[in-house]
Structures are given as C-alpha cells and as structure tokens.
C-alpha cells in the first residue's frame, strides 16, 4: 500500500482526498483569515525559535532535511520548529498562514509556486537581505525572482531524464535512444507480454505537465502558444507511444512515483523520471539501469527540460527574526551543506561548479547535470499565469491520450481555455 500512496517529493497527486471538501474549502480558508494567528512564525517574541515548513514526506529526504536544518540552526544559535505538510496541502496551508499574517520564518517551496507567493508581499527579499546567487544556475536564480528581487534560493535542483533497464537493453541488443525515432522504435521492440517499452506520467495535474515539458520544449514549442505545430508534434509522439501499445494506457493515472514503481517492477523498460528516485532505485540491488538525456526530435536539437526543485524563502515577521532566518538560509546554501544535501537526496547542487564536480564523480547524475545547464524554469514565460496554462496543457495531454481527441484539437482547445 505504501508504494502506491507514496509519491515523490516533487509532486503529489492533486489532492489528499477526504480532508478538504471542495465545497467548504473556500469558506474554511476565509475563516482562517480572521482567526488568530496559527502559531507558526508571526511577530513578537524573542527569536530563539524559528518555524519551518516543507513537503518532503518521503524517505530519505524527510529525515535528511531536519538533520541539516538542526545543524544550521545550532550554528546560528536558534532552534527550529520543523513541520511537514503533504504536497497537496502545502499551498493551501501557506495561503492560510499568509492570510493570518503568520507565514513561517522558513519555507521550502516548489519553484513554480514562488512567484505566486512572492506576489502576496509576505516574503522577505533575499537580495536586499544580502544573500548572493552568484555561481548558481541562471535558470534557478530566475525562478526565484519576482519583479527584479530574489525571494527564493534553491539548495539543489532537479530535472528529468530517461532511465533505461540495462539488462533488457543488452538482451535485445539495443543502445539507449537519443532521438524520438529511436525512442519509438526501441519502445516497440522492448514491449513484450505484460512489459511496456516506456513509462511516463501523464496524470492530469502539474505533475503530468512537468513530464511532458521536456518533449514540448525540446520540439521548440512555447507555453504562450499551446497549439503550435511543434506542440502538436510533441503530443503526437506521446499519443503514438500509447496508441501503439508501447506505453500503458494507464499513464494518464500514474504519478511519477507510480512510474518509478512500474520501472522497478520490470513492467517498463524505460521511464521518464527525476534524480530524486535514485536513492530508491539504487537500494534495489537486482535492478540494473542507466540514465541518458531525454531524446530529441532530430540531430542538432538540444534537450530543454523543466527545472524542478524547491527554493528557500523567508516570511515577514520582525527584523530580528528575519535576520536569524536569513542567517539559517545562508548556512543551508553553503557549499558543504548544499553538496551533502544534494548527494543524499538525489538533487543536483544549484552551484554550477559543485554540480560539475558531482557529475564527474557520479555517472548516474551526469545526464541530469548536463540537462540542468539548458533547463528552463517553468515560470519564465508566464510568471504568475503558469498554474492556469499548466492545467490546460495537462487536460490536453489527457484528452489526446485517453479520449481519442486528435493532438491538434486537444491543444487548440487548451489554448482557448488558457486564454479564458
């Protein structure tokens, strides 16, 4: 059971069901708005205890993060009250706290959500507080900025690549694919019995969009025009993989954690997934796999993957608390701390030099490090409009894969929905 319920840190299925009745949700949030502060953060009081919130609820990250936090807290001379919230409840929780004006001192938030939260005015500008983003990947720096100010800095980043089962590839006498044609051909050859050639997540949330974006962007499409010929080309690739039976019809219900389970169980010869799965995959000694960059449409194209990962933010309280919180963030972003964290959690250090060192020492991460260099932050094109367009794109993917709608029609519907 835990397998299916457990999902990646990066994303969770759209909702932790049963806890939030949509009917009451809007009202409940407002109720919180005028309630007293929820006790997290807030103003006043000696800054000897800081509050922190994140959504890392899966091993190994859920134990590593508190550890590194405590280390940095001890060095700064404060205590940290640590809190984990499931991914689906994370934004509602933060919004509640924002409305009670008691945002936590430290929050580790998903990078595409940063601009939305920064727009509330509840976050401390880290650039004004004197934190530097020098040496970090420009794309993650950009994802942490809103209106020219840096509000979030990432200790590590991630992306997507193609995992392949080396045993199956050797048996079939194949080499890992580098182009879309090779991907399609290999997937067809490796599909046998109950095993599919390739697995990916096309679930109807941001998670599905995130998995599609490497193909979408690599084809040359833009989120500003969902119905471009390049976008149609990318969606056609996915539709053909499912249509020909090389990928399961169930991809529309799989989260990235489900995809990982399918790959580990030998039900898929290849999968699209991120580096955060490496600790789990490596724990299975019988599984032999390799990682290559996402295949490209034709020779000469460069893979453009979406940049994943979380950024540290500091919530407004009072000057003394904010200073302490900034000091903790500075420690968390330190060279050794972020390197340790990245290594254990399956992340790429956001510092370019540290990333290059890691790639040299760890071949599993080489593909990811190579891609992060050209990766794109999801909010670059659209800013705070991203969630809406992402949802429209996820709907289009599902309509094409599960509903028999043509990619052209699905994407043109998505474009008009996104503009609405």
């Amino acid at each position: 059971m835990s397998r299916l319920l457990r999902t990646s840190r990066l994303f969770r299925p759209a909702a932790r069901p049963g806890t939030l009745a949509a009917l009451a949700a809007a009202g409940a949030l407002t109720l919180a708005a005028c309630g007293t502060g929820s006790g997290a953060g807030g103003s006043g009081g000696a800054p000897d205890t800081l509050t922190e919130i994140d959504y890392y609820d899966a091993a190994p990250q859920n134990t590593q993060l508190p550890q590194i936090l405590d280390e940095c807290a001890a060095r700064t001379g404060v205590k940290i009250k640590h809190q984990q919230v499931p991914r689906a409840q994370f934004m509602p929780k933060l919004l509640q706290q924002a409305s009670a004006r008691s945002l936590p001192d430290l929050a580790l938030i998903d990078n595409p959500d940063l601009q939305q939260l920064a727009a509330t005015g509840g976050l401390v500008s880290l650039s004004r507080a004197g934190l530097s983003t020098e040496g970090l990947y420009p794309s993650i720096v950009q994802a942490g900025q809103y209106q020219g100010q840096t509000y979030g800095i990432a200790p590590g980043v991630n992306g997507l690549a193609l995992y392949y089962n080396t045993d199956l590839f050797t048996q079939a006498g194949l080499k890992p694919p580098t182009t879309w044609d090779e991907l399609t051909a290999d997937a067809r050859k490796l599909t046998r019995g109950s095993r599919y050639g390739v697995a990916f997540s096309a679930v109807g949330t941001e998670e599905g969009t995130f998995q599609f974006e490497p193909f979408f962007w690599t084809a040359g499409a833009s989120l500003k025009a969902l119905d471009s010929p390049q976008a149609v080309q990318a969606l056609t690739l996915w539709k053909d993989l499912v249509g020909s039976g090389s990928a399961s019809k169930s991809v529309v219900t799989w989260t990235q954690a489900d995809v990982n389970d399918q790959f580990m169980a030998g039900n898929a010869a290849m999968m699209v997934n991120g580096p955060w799965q490496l600790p789990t995959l490596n724990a299975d000694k019988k599984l032999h796999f390799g990682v290559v960059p996402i295949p490209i449409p034709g020779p000469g194209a460069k893979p453009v993957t979406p940049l994943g990962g979380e950024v540290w933010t500091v919530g407004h309280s009072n000057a003394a608390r904010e200073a302490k919180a900034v000091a903790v963030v500075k420690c968390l972003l330190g060279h050794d701390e972020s390197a340790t964290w990245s290594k254990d959690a399956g992340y790429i250090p956001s510092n370019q030099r540290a990333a290059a060192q890691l790639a040299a020492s760890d071949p599993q991460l080489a593909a990811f490090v190579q891609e992060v260099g050209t990766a794109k932050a999801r909010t670059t094109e659209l800013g705070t409009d991203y969630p809406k367009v992402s949802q429209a794109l996820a709907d289009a993917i599902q309509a094409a894969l599960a509903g028999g709608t043509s990619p052209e029609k699905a994407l043109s519907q998505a474009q008009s929905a996104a503009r609405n």
Partner: protein
Amino acid sequence: MSTTVQGRPAAVTAAAAAPGGRSRGPARARWAAVAFVAPAWLYVAGFYLYPLASSIRMGFQDYTVSSFYTGVAPYVGWDNYSKVLHDSHFGRTVLNTVVFTAGSLVFQFALGLALAVFFNRRFPLGGPLRSLLLVPWLLPLVVSGTAWRWILDTDSGVLNHALLQLHLIGHPVPWLASTHDALTAVTLVNIWVGIPFNMVILYGGLQSIPGELYEAAALDGAGGWQRFRHITLPLLRPVTAVVLTLGLIYTVKVFDVIMILTQGGPAGSSQTLTTFAYNLSFQQLEFGRGAAVGNLLIVVAVVFAVVYLRATREQRQAGR
C-alpha cells in the same frame, strides 16, 4: 442575529413547559432559555453562517493568491459566475454530476433494498453476513479508494483479470484511464460505498412492517412479488423518501472517491462540481471561481434539503 429574536420562540417553549412547574418570573425563564440556546447559535454562526457568508462574498470577488495576504479583493459582480458558466468544462461537469448522482442513487437503492429484503428473512449466519456488508461503510474512503484503484488498474487489476479469464472481454478495459469508462468506474465504486447505508436504513424500515400483513396476504393467495409490490413498497415509502433525499445530498457532494480514483480525469471525464471547485481553487488558484462553483453546489443541496424537510414534515403531520 440578535438574541431577542431567538429569545421569543425559546420563551414560548419555556412558557409552555411552565404550567405544572414551579412559578418563575418570565424574564428569568427567558434568560435561562437564551443561555441554553446561545452556545448552539454561536457554534452555528461561527462554523456555518460565517464561512457560508464568506464563500458567497468570495464568489463576487476577484480573489487571488495575494488577496490572502493583503486582504484586498476587488468586487467583480457576477463575473466569476459568468466565467464559470462559459467555461468549456462546465456543461460536461454538470452532466457528469447528474449522471453520477442518478446512477449512484438508483443502483444504491435497488441493491440496498434487495439486500435488506434478503436479510429480512431469518437464516443461519444472517447476522454476521449482514455485519460484513457494513464494511464498505466503515472503511476510510482513502483505504477503499486506493484498493479500488488497484482493482480497476488496466494492466494488473484483478477486475480485468477476472473478466478476461471469464472471456467476457476481449482485451483489458482501461477503467480509470479512458475518457469513456472513467465516469462509469467512479460511479460503480460510489455505488459500492453507498449500498450499506441504504441497506441499513431500509432494513430498519422492513423490521417495522408487521409480519401479520404478509401472513394475511399469503392466506389471500398473494405471491412473493405481489406481497413486495403491495405491502413492502407502500409501507416503506416514508423510509424510502428519507434514504433517497439523504442519499442525493450525500452523492452530490461526493469528493474523496473521485479524487482518489481519477482526480476528475482523464481530461475532466469524471469531473463533478465538487472536484471542479477544488480544481479551480487549488490547482488554478482561481479562488473566486472556485467559490462560485461551491456556491452553486450549496444552492443545489439547499433545494433538496428543503424538499426533504417538507417531506418529513408532511409525513409527521400525516402520522398524527
């Protein structure tokens, strides 16, 4: 909501109770009544009326993420409602909600009634079996929903496996992975969840039908079907009304079953108004529109709640 208004009916009851009791000053009795009623009213006001009013207000505002921090949300009139009504998903969603609700109600009731009639006869192990049928009701929906996700899985699900073995289907049915089957699948699961409720209430209703009626009918030569048609159904009518109205209100607002199984997908094919509201508020962060859909749902629920209250009142009056 001033206390004086509520004080009046309360005082009436107090006064009605007074004859035969010790003589007390009317003012004191009234204050005592208010003191007893006040906590309930405060609770209702704080936890029902206030959120309801906020939700209605939110439906008329352009409520964004920053509104949560600044508290500023411009008034936009009926804009949210008109956008929701013109949303390309809206028609489909309403249709889904109707199909889901009607399908669930009809089958839950029919199967619940059949089981209730079945268990109304005495036979060995009837009691334990009946208790076992309550399990779907007792399990947390997260648990049963997850189990159903496995059962309905296209490739490794036990349902497809069984159907294939029985040669009822030629190739696996993508229950949760196809826009054609997803709504059927979530409705099936919801029917399964709802059967115990229907069975328990209808069983209780059956127990209250006097056995002599059946004996007399049997003596008059009425067959099994005739007894069911002319005794069971008419005498069960009051209970039926309660079961169906409550079932309707519960089903319209079902959220967790759909969220666990399909999240409203694929491509909105199993989206109902509840998941639509959730999606608008927490995926697209369009809180005003989410609230608008929520309010529409409240209107639907209130309409049926009024119908229900009317029906029960008439029943009570008829019973007197």
